[in-house]
């Protein structure tokens, strides 16, 4: 386990705990990395959270919060649609590429491309600016599925097992591309190399390097190319590479499938919050004798 149990928000003045507070709240060998909530949030207001029906406060804050989040989501929808259209166009232009062509067909069927592939395409096409939203959807889809079906089941469904050496984190694959724009954990050349490693198969490679160099052209500039390595290298690595590609592809396909349900799931969750708030308000009203 990477973090220790937390005991609730501490009355700190900043969400960033100082070292003294950290050491007093966590085991020395495994400091907790979770940050305490901002202290300008009234703990009672937060506690009023929908699912927590202890009715400690008026709950006005949470109700407003849900409305605000929905508003923000609506605003982002336009941005999302724009990205989706650009991506669709880019994919159409690359139908001759087997990998991207296949993805294009999947996206066409599902309709909600955006997600896509996400990461890769959006990161390349927008210099990474659109990636967080896409990633949020993909991450939430993964989390929701894991909660509903269990980790083993979802990993099995994705063709991934933590016992397999070829296990690939979709986040890492995404990082490889998104970060190649310079802002992060992987240096550009490493990013290209990592992505090539993932996409390599049968001595061919999706040469993302060109796309990174001319980022403005977006996905359309992703082209098939020849592997950098010598022929004997790809022979030796072909099986492993094929396995990697297969897993990555399955992850992407799954993300695309899940995206179609995302909007519905989001509405369901928000409605659940509203129901809980209304239930609590009714309970409070009854308790106070107003009903």
């Amino acid at each position: 386990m990477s973090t220790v149990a937390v005991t609730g928000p501490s009355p700190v003045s900043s969400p960033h705990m100082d070292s003294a507070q950290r050491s007093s709240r966590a085991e020395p060998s495994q400091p907790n990395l979770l940050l305490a909530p901002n202290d300008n949030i009234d703990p009672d207001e937060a506690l009023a959270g929908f699912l927590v029906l202890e009715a400690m406060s008026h709950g006005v804050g949470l109700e407003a919060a849900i409305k605000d989040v929905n508003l923000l989501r609506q605003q982002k929808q336009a941005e999302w649609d724009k990205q989706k259209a650009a991506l669709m166009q880019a994919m159409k232009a690359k139908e001759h590429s087997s990998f991207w062509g296949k993805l294009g067909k999947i996206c066409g069927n599902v309709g909600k491309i955006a997600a896509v592939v996400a990461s890769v395409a959006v990161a390349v096409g927008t210099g990474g600016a659109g990636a967080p939203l896409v990633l949020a959807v993909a991450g939430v889809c993964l989390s929701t599925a894991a909660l509903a079906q269990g980790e083993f089941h979802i990993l099995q469904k994705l063709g991934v097992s933590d016992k397999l050496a070829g296990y690939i984190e979709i986040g890492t694959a995404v990082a490889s591309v998104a970060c190649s724009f310079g802002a992060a954990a992987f240096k550009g050349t490493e990013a290209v190399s990592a992505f090539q490693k993932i996409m390599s198969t049968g001595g061919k490679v999706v040469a993302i390097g060109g796309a990174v160099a001319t980022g403005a052209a977006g996905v359309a500039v992703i082209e098939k190319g020849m592997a950098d390595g010598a022929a004997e290298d790809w022979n030796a690595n072909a099986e492993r590479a094929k396995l990697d590609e297969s897993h990555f592809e399955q992850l992407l396909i799954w993300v695309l499938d899940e995206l179609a349900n995302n909007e519905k799931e989001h509405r369901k969750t928000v409605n659940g919050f509203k129901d809980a708030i209304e239930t609590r308000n009714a309970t409070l009203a009854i308790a106070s004798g107003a009903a």
Partner: protein
Amino acid sequence: MNALIGTNGCRPQEHAVEILYATGFRLHAQERYRDAAQVFHVMLQAAPADERGWLALADCHEKLGQRSVALELFSVGTVAAEPAPRCMLSRFRLLYDLDRTQEADEAYNAALELAAAAADDDLTNLIQNERWVRP
């Protein structure tokens, strides 16, 4: 309903995100990880670049014994919320515990670089101390 009620000077959407985080944090503290995860889902879709949400959501999965899913989410967090040194450090911990030492080393170095770039001395120290626990 007045969306500005109780915002204490924050913009409404920022305040909304804070309330969601605080609520999820409470549920997490009560070991109600499934409930907390649902709150963090909504929070992350409103604020995907908020590292706290990714850390917390991934931690919920880890507490539920879903380490591979947690690893995915920490990884996604490193990109969506970049720079995200805490997510990167969490990746290091998980990878190390999974005996994926080479990847763990890469994650450790990346976490150290990110913390240094952010000029966060406390976090840098915390990351350096990790090597005493996970050499």
